[in-house]
């Protein structure tokens, strides 16, 4: 039985259960439904849930547990489907047998649905657990093959699939931070000034045009920015800045990726700052204006200082975005792992190398493949740390005015 047939059988039994349960409830009171505790549909629903949920749970658990049991053969998997069908039939029978006029079917149905709701909420925790477990387990097998201190503090990245590769993370970390720094250098002033102008100066009409335009920037997929870096910005920077200055002749460079990533982050910074600036109480502005400050003095001396923790939080969130960004650096930054201060040279980042090591044919026993998981763990820890810090700062700031 294919999984699909099993599914159809289970759902068919559940539908049948609904009809039978409903009819039986009505029949028990000879059509006078006022004598039932719950309306007939609830009796039907309960039978349907009893018929559908246990076998579905069995299938999901069986599918998940299958790889865990070492001795499980294909035969065990084939047994699963008939077992599930039998379970559905049993649930149908039990459900029908329990129907009586005084039976509180509605309460039972609502309890089951409540449990389902909780289960769905727990998927968030399960996802986080899945991420952490997969990163930690695969990283652990990497560190069994490769010393951790050489990974963390090594300054050379030369993977060789023949063995004897050097997998030092520092050049990648340097590239990541350098590009993120340039991106923030572009995005923070522009985003911040755009937010200030939009919330403090812009007329309704200007805002009606500018706000959606900046939001469009946020909706553009990163692959589009990546191609923009590769085809347009890279050659432009190479021909007009790097080559005349004699600093390099590579289209892919830290400056290219940083600039384009900065453009991508503008809407992110500006919408976050916009919220934060709007949260500053109007009374503070009125007070400053009443004392004779010009609007810009009010903003510089009152609004920004009051909003500063929130803005710092926004910058940290933007930094975490920049560190985790992949497509722009894959297409715009190059693949050379090196530590250099020249922004017109190609460098590479953690995300680029994760993609590089995990696409194509993988051998999940070689350190060259497994290193991607250690890089992923590094990335996860860095972005998580920045997010937690940012949320902490923002929350602390909010307490001041509420």
């Amino acid at each position, binding site marked *: 039985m294919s999984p699909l047939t099993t599914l159809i059988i289970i759902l068919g039994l559940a539908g049948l259960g609904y009809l039978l349960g409903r009819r039986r409830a009505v029949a028990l009171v000879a059509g006078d439904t006022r004598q039932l505790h719950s309306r007939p549909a609830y009796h039907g629903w309960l039978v349907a849930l009893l018929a559908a949920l246990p076998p579905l749970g069995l299938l999901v658990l069986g599918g998940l547990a299958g790889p865990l049991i070492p001795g499980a053969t294909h035969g065990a998997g084939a047994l699963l489907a008939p077992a599930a069908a039998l379970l559905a039939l049993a649930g149908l029978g039990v459900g029908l047998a329990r129907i009586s006029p005084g039976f509180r079917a509605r309460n039972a149905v609502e309890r089951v649905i409540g449990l389902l709701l909780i289960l769905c909420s727990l998927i968030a925790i399960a996802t986080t657990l899945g991420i952490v477990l997969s990163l930690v387990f695969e990283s652990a097998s990497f560190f069994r093959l490769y010393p951790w201190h050489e990974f963390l503090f090594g300054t050379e990245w030369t993977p060789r699939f023949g063995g004897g590769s050097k997998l030092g993370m520092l050049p990648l970390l340097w590239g990541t931070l350098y590009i993120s720094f340039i991106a923030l250098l572009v995005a923070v002033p522009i985003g911040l000034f755009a937010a200030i102008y939009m919330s403090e100066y812009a007329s309704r009409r200007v805002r009606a045009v*500018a706000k959606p335009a900046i939001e469009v920037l946020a909706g553009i997929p990163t692959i589009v920015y990546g191609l923009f870096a590769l085809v347009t910005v890279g050659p432009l920077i190479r021909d007009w800045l790097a080559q005349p200055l004699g600093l390099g002749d590579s289209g892919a460079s830290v400056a290219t990726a940083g600039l384009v990533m900065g453009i991508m982050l503008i809407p992110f910074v500006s919408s976050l700052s916009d919220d934060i600036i709007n949260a500053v109480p109007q009374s503070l502005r009125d007070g400053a204006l009443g004392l004779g400050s010009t609007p810009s003095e009010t903003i510089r001396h009152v609004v920004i200082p009051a909003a500063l923790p929130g803005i710092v939080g926004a910058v940290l969130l933007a930094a975490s975005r920049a560190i985790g960004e992949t497509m722009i650096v894959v297409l715009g930054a190059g693949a050379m792992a090196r530590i250099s201060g020249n922004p017109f040279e190609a460098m590479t980042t953690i995300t680029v190398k994760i993609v590089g090591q*995990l696409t194509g044919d993988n051998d999940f026993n070689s350190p060259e493949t497994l290193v991607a998981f250690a890089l992923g763990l590094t990335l996860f820890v860095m972005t998580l740390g920045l997010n937690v810090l940012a949320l902490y700062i923002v929350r602390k700031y909010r307490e001041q005015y509420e």
Partner: protein
Amino acid sequence: MSDPAQTAPRPRRSLLQTDAGTRRRNAAERRFRTYGAAAILTAMAALAVLMFTVFRDGASAFVQARATIPVVIAADVVDPQGNRDPAEMAKILTMSYSRLLDQALTREIARSGIQVGGLTQRDITGFLSAQARADLRRAVLADPSLVGQEIEWRMMTSSRVDAMLKGRITREMAARDARTSVAQYDLAMALRDRGVVRAGFNWRFITAPDGSDSRPEAAGLGVAILGSFYMMLIVLVLALPIGVAASIWLEEFAPKNRLTDVIEVNISNLAAVPSIVFGILGLAAFINFVGLPRSAPIVGGLVLTLMTLPTIIISTRAALKAVPPSIRDAALGVGASRMQTVFHHVLPLAMPGVLTGTILGLAQALGETAPLMLIGMVAFVTTYPSAPPQGLFDPASALPVQIYNWTQRADPAFFERASGAIIVLLAFLLAMNLIAIWLRRKFERRW
């Protein structure tokens, strides 16, 4: 600040005449305003340049030059046995059909009296797309009665000839490029002037599967669009119910306790986890652990579901929160249970907001590239996945990954394809956003 009696005699001031200090402050004010306006203009200029370059580079991908010439399907070439048996004819490889096309083109040149100096056999063979022979072979095998006849056959020109007609390759460039020649360029222009080669809308670009490195003109988005569609289907079927259920519990039922806090923190953190980490999760959990196939839409769909869940939960909770408490109070007051209150009254009223958030989440998922690369969707796939549910397990590509794929190819014609694919992707995103805006406008309710 200081004692007024001790200050120097006050300077004469007039409200009509601004003094130096005020002028300075006003100038600073104007400067500050200018910075703000400049920031917004910079952002809008960046958007304009981005859009301009995409459309400049990509619009031509939707046009393809095709040649229409009479081709003689010579029986001695395609059916040496002479028995019109498709099984026997299938042994004749594509290269033989190439000869037919070369002969046809040579005849056509002679017939229209085009005089081009220095035209070599290579120029002629390279004039037509390598896909043209394969198409002709397929047509002949499907209909053996064509053998021995002369048919008007419409076929794609090679990407280089196509680029000449689009003006991307000029006569000078053709002279410098080893793969083309001035003679080929002159031939292309002459055939265009005689109406033999014509540019038309390129449906193939949207419907055909990916083409190999050597035939960019044949590469299309069909498999990628289908793969993306399958994944969006999975995301919709999984993320919408799960997201709504989770939001309902968190917003309407969850008690204030540890577990709720943990879930909330998890959701806000997941929203900020880099997308590539979800790709690692997909690779480690769904492919290596559960054993689902690589490059299958099912894995991509699951990964994108997990990735968009936080977005959907956040917007759904906002929509539920916007339903005023009076609705709940009224329902509870006439004897509805809490569950009935939510499912019969609150949720229907919040539905427009929920759908808007879901569509925006889908749009985000549609443009996501990095996680799909890790689960093997960069593979070169030229067969369409079959219909769902089996098709969900077949290898497929996805729109953004296809774009990435094409940027990695050597032939510059693929850049045109990549930009064209971006236009398709942006068109889908635009449509989704318009639907979301329309939903919001039509059903939005102010309380």
